[in-house]
């Protein structure tokens, strides 16, 4: 054990410093000092992350070669491979962007497209985007992608912004149920083993009848901050029966795959008119589920001849 007074002193000082920071941050909430520190550091880190994430896309193989020609060729191969993967990436990005724009156009949102460049550590569900106040992004704005609601911008620097995902357990999104117009809110599950957990829906009307398959869109927040109306959130996956509860509860499967976020859009101007449910993807139609009934008739001689019977369609 290498222990000495000096090391303990250093440890003590650092621990005290950390505790002071925690306390200051905890007590201040959103005080200007802490925000200033965060902003300054985020500006530095954000630009680095931007570079790093653009570099991580270019992963190519390279072999060791002995002769010059082989080396040149293998370098070429590596370059081409990198190009190819870049192409693929941009193809995927393009598809995502296309869907994003079509959704935004459908709802009448003005969006700024951005890429996810960093993912938060720990148990928070946050990501960093490569668009910031220079692009017109402000805090408390809605973030969506081609599938639906992603989250909310919590802090902005010049070139980056941080998004609290809708799956974070501290995120609460006001929603409206698609056909019925019931009002409720959705909270995230936090970090889950699967990455994308089911959101929790609570509907204000305790007597509301929730059925799986119902779709959810965001309902307008005050002055459209942080959530603009009409963004698809998800579909009800299951209803939680809780007799006597004040609110009706259900679990919601999000439209967005939060583990594969790529191109997202930040809504910098809300739609002129509430798009209501127009942005929603076509509701899944109930498909008939075939049921097979087997009737067993006890036969003579102790044998049980099974006779397949008629399948009946239900649903």
């Amino acid at each position: 054990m290498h222990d000495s007074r000096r090391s303990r002193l250093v440890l003590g000082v650092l621990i005290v410093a950390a505790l002071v920071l925690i306390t200051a941050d905890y007590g201040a909430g959103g005080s200007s000092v802490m925000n200033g520190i965060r902003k300054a550091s985020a500006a530095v880190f954000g630009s680095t992350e931007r570079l790093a994430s653009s570099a991580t896309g270019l992963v190519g193989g390279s072999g060791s070669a002995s002769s010059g020609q082989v080396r040149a060729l293998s370098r070429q191969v590596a370059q081409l491979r990198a190009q190819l993967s870049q192409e693929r990436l941009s193809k995927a990005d393009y598809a995502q962007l296309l869907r994003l724009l079509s959704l935004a156009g459908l709802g009448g949102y003005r969006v700024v497209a951005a890429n996810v460049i960093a993912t938060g550590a720990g148990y928070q569900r946050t990501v960093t985007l490569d668009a910031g106040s220079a692009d017109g992004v402000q805090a408390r704005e809605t973030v969506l992608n081609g599938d639906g609601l992603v989250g909310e911008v919590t802090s902005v620097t010049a070139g980056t912004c941080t998004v609290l995902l809708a799956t974070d357990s501290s995120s609460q999104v006001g929603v409206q149920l698609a056909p019925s117009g019931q009002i409720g809110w959705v909270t995230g599950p936090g970090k889950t083993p699967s990455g994308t957990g089911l959101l929790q829906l609570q509907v204000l009307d305790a007597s509301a009848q929730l059925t799986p398959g119902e779709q959810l869109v965001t309902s307008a927040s005050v002055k459209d901050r942080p959530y603009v109306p009409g963004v698809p959130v998800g579909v009800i996956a299951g209803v939680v029966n809780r007799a006597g509860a004040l609110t009706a509860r259900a679990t919601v499967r999000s439209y967005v795959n939060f583990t594969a976020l790529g191109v997202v859009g930040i809504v910098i101007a809300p739609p002129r008119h509430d798009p209501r449910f127009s942005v929603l993807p076509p509701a899944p139609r109930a498909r008939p589920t075939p049921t097979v009934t087997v009737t067993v008739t006890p036969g003579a001689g102790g044998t049980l001849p099974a006779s397949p019977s008629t399948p009946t369609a239900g649903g």
Partner: protein
Amino acid sequence: MRRLILTIAAVALALLLQLTTINGLRLPGGGVPDLVLLVVAALGLAGGPVRGAITGFAAGLGLDLAPPGSGLLGQYALVLCLVGWTCGRFRGTLARSAAVPMLIVAAAAVAGEVMIAALGLALQPAQVSWTSVRQVLPAGAFYDVVASPFVLYLVLLAGAWLGEAATADSGARAGQARSLAGGTLVGPAGLGGPAALAGTQGVAPRQGLAGPAGTAGGAMLLGLGGWLAGPPESRRARRAAARRAPKLAPGAGRPGDGWVGGSAAGRARGDRVVGGPALSGQAWRGQALRGQAFSVQALRNLARDSRPHGSGAALRAGVAGSAADPHAPRTLGARPVHLRLAAGRKGDGTVGNLLGGGRSVVAGRARRRRSLNRNSLVRGSLVRGSPGGGSLGRGALGPVSLDGGALSRRSMDRLGRRRPSRGGSFRPAVMPGGSAVTSAITRQPDGGHPRSAAPVRFSTARSGTARFGPGRFGPVRFVPGRRRDGLIGGGVLSPLGRSGGIGGSGGIGGSGRRTAAPRFRVRPGGSAHLTTSGLSGTGGAGAGTLPSLRRPAPQRLRMHPRRGDGMLGGSLGGHGRSLGGHGGSLGGHGRPLGGLRTTAGLRGGRPATPRFRARPLSPGRPPSGKRPRFGYRRWSVLSLLPGRFGTRSPGRRTVGLRAGSTGPSGSLARRSWARRRWAAIRRPGGLR
């Protein structure tokens, strides 16, 4: 500086990778490895507690501040700081084992994950829910454990690579050190009879005592353990060596490192190769041990007269212990040496010994010298009293019989009865081998009455006191001593600038019944040539070496590698003057002293600044009933396992070695010896 760059680069890389890539991974179970945590743990392990704590704090702050971080500021800083510090405390394991550091890093990672989750639960209940912690934490911890060896390896590798790139020839140096240790100095012609240190890897010595040249391994740099170099010997052998050998973890080279165990003159003759014969005990005894100053001229003669020899010990300026360095630095720095006694503890033993200048003249202490000389105890190995209250010079003479033949018991007894005129008393102690005598002049801290039973204490010499030799030594500082504090025994030796000479006396002598238990830290600077002789209490009294003292407690020396550490020299057989000191440590009844590790932490011509701390083992419970606390706690996860892994019991390891009683592989004999000794101690009357 290089280390700093490495640390910053590693942390920054880990941060970026973690945030941009790893956190976005989707792995089964939902968790992801926390690369930053692992890097901090590995850096802490490689850098020590202070560096670990600072690194952890900085990295954690980075995690807190980097953009997606929405937790409370300081949360990660707190956790990672603790992790880094804790890992740093286990730094010594890096040099000792391969598995234990990995286990430590893995355990630290798991603990860090748990702490992060707990802090989140406590401080941010809205964001961190118990269910998500319960579901995700095991997966994250699992990935951490899986990734930890690789991260550790990479960090160490990067450290080694940087260090290697810096010194370039460190491997060669280490090899030279080994070859010297394994080859030339062995045998009667060398120092101290058939004793030499095994290679730098801490390997069990083979072929008797000498680790053959080039046993294995590479340079140990930046606190890098020997495990990177691969297993040089069987595990059992390594373990045996680990038990037996003084533990000198490698020091990390710093800018400004110099030579330990070197000397200016030797360096001046850097290109001369001195063959083995020149190092023969005869010459050695004749010139150095007899206390005649090893003048520059003598050294030059020595170098000149020698011819290149087959397995020649090259008396060049060199890495500590290497005695052969092709790239000899020109100058020595002039920084002072700081010797500090590590904080003593209750139950520490006394050491009667010599912090030795090798000069035959003790300035201003004619009386003392006379009396010593009369008893033919010390010739030329006195410590010069310091101007500043130097309890060293006055109080702590460790006269050593320098005549290889040693004193007879009778003369020893005579010595024991004799009281020096002032300020101390001799207490003879017999070595088990009976060949050597030690005595310690004890002295009250306040300079008061002699007290024969009092241990030597250096508590008065707090600041910059003792001055060794003519001018080249800086102040020796002791931290305030405490009850039964030990002396620094023999460990520090001065080649003494121009006058040469031997320093370190052999071993650490116990006085009275108390066994020696010094814990000291040498923090030399500049021109110091430290040789640590008398490690592990062997202090051999072999032919031509310094006699050992009363069987001292085996001592573990550990280096605290720090920036600017130099080499622990000497023990591998230095060159030039410092060879004298090695007599003490190398010799000793054919007892192996394997496994000294030196580092080639030197970079071109800068002065050495090794710092190490010796932590001796206790041979048993001292008669006072207080359990000495200097026991070396060797705890290993493996020891918890049954079967062949469980051969080592956790807890205090008391290795008592009777000098000369065991061979290289005599762990059984050692154990039974320890048992016997234990019984002897517990008998009324104690150990005689």
